[in-house]
């Protein structure tokens, strides 16, 4: 029998309060399935976010037993007898485990997270990329925007203007793309106290990433590009 303690907020709760639920985890049961179990059999008022249930959409990111992770890919049997669940950190809580992700997505929109290429497209075919060029994107393209890294980062807590590891990694994803022609602009966009220079290489982001992306490596690459742009005049 496991005790699942969920931090409840909003609705009938004036103050953040832990509410405990007891359940017998089935073999192979994930935390998300356990939350569904609680919702269906014990407390229909529990609020949490989910979509794909397969670690692809990033919707069910939450703080489980001291670590930010995806509820759908975390096994109950790996967590012991007491499981403590909180919402993502550093974002306004709407209710229970549901946070307002708008500040994160607003930052993401601000860096133009799409391919920019001002040159005319090749006649009758797509912009080609060699397997070697594509290899540069292998890891960073896996980001599912779950915001685990943003919540684990201590700098995003104290500086709400800081772009954060997920957004900076997204910039690196396009800056590293051989088809993108906005490299100088992207390097300029991170060259600020609230950009790459706020990162102190604490590595909390890489530690929690469910896709094992090395965000500090991406941030270091963007630091290098910002330095090259200022010192050599090109990124």
């Amino acid at each position, binding site marked *: 029998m496991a005790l699942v303690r969920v931090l409840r907020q909003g609705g009938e709760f004036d103050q953040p309060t832990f509410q405990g639920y007891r359940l017998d985890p089935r073999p192979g049961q994930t935390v998300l399935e356990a939350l569904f179990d609680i919702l269906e059999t014990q407390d229909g008022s529990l609020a949490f976010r989910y979509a794909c249930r397969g670690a692809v959409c990033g919707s069910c990111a939450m703080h489980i037993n001291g670590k930010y992770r995806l509820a759908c890919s975390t096994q109950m049997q790996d967590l012991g007898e007491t499981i403590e669940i909180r919402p993502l950190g550093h974002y306004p809580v709407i209710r229970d485990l549901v946070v307002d992700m708008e500040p994160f997505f607003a930052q993401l929109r601000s860096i*133009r997270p799409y391919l920019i290429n001002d040159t005319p497209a090749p006649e009758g075919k797509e912009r080609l990329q060699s397997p070697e060029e594509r290899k540069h994107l292998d890891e960073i393209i896996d980001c599912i925007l779950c915001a685990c890294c943003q919540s684990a980062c201590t*700098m995003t807590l104290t*500086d709400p203007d800081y772009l954060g590891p997920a957004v900076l990694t997204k910039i690196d994803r396009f800056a590293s793309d051989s088809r993108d022609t906005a490299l100088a602009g992207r390097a300029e966009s991170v060259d600020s*106290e609230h*950009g790459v*220079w706020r990162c102190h290489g604490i590595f909390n982001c890489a530690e929690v990433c469910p896709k094992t992306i090395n965000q500090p490596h991406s941030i270091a690459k963007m630091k290098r590009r910002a330095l090259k742009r200022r010192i050599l005049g090109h990124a």
Partner: protein
Amino acid sequence: MKAVPADGQALWLWLFQRVTGALLVIGIGVHFHVGHYTGLLTSESVAERLRQAAWLGFDLVLVALLAFHGINGLRNIVRDYNPRGSRIIDIVAAALIIAMVLYCARDLSAFRSL
């Protein structure tokens, strides 16, 4: 493309923090060696060394590197907790660095006339 306001000084402060850190590793090593492994350390021996322009210059540069690295490090911590604070933090940090270098320069010069 400007996701965040452009900030000219952040890059240089970050770079100089690392450059001064690397130089301090060497400089403090030399300072430690001279102070502990080149004979008895007395006021006279220090005054004798500081009467040589090269050593006076070395110590002044070491103080300047130390002042920048230490005070800028503290400024970074204050800024981390107060990222939207006014530029007064930067002005105080710069004033402290200059004051520390001038204070130590005065003392080093005074030593020469012992």
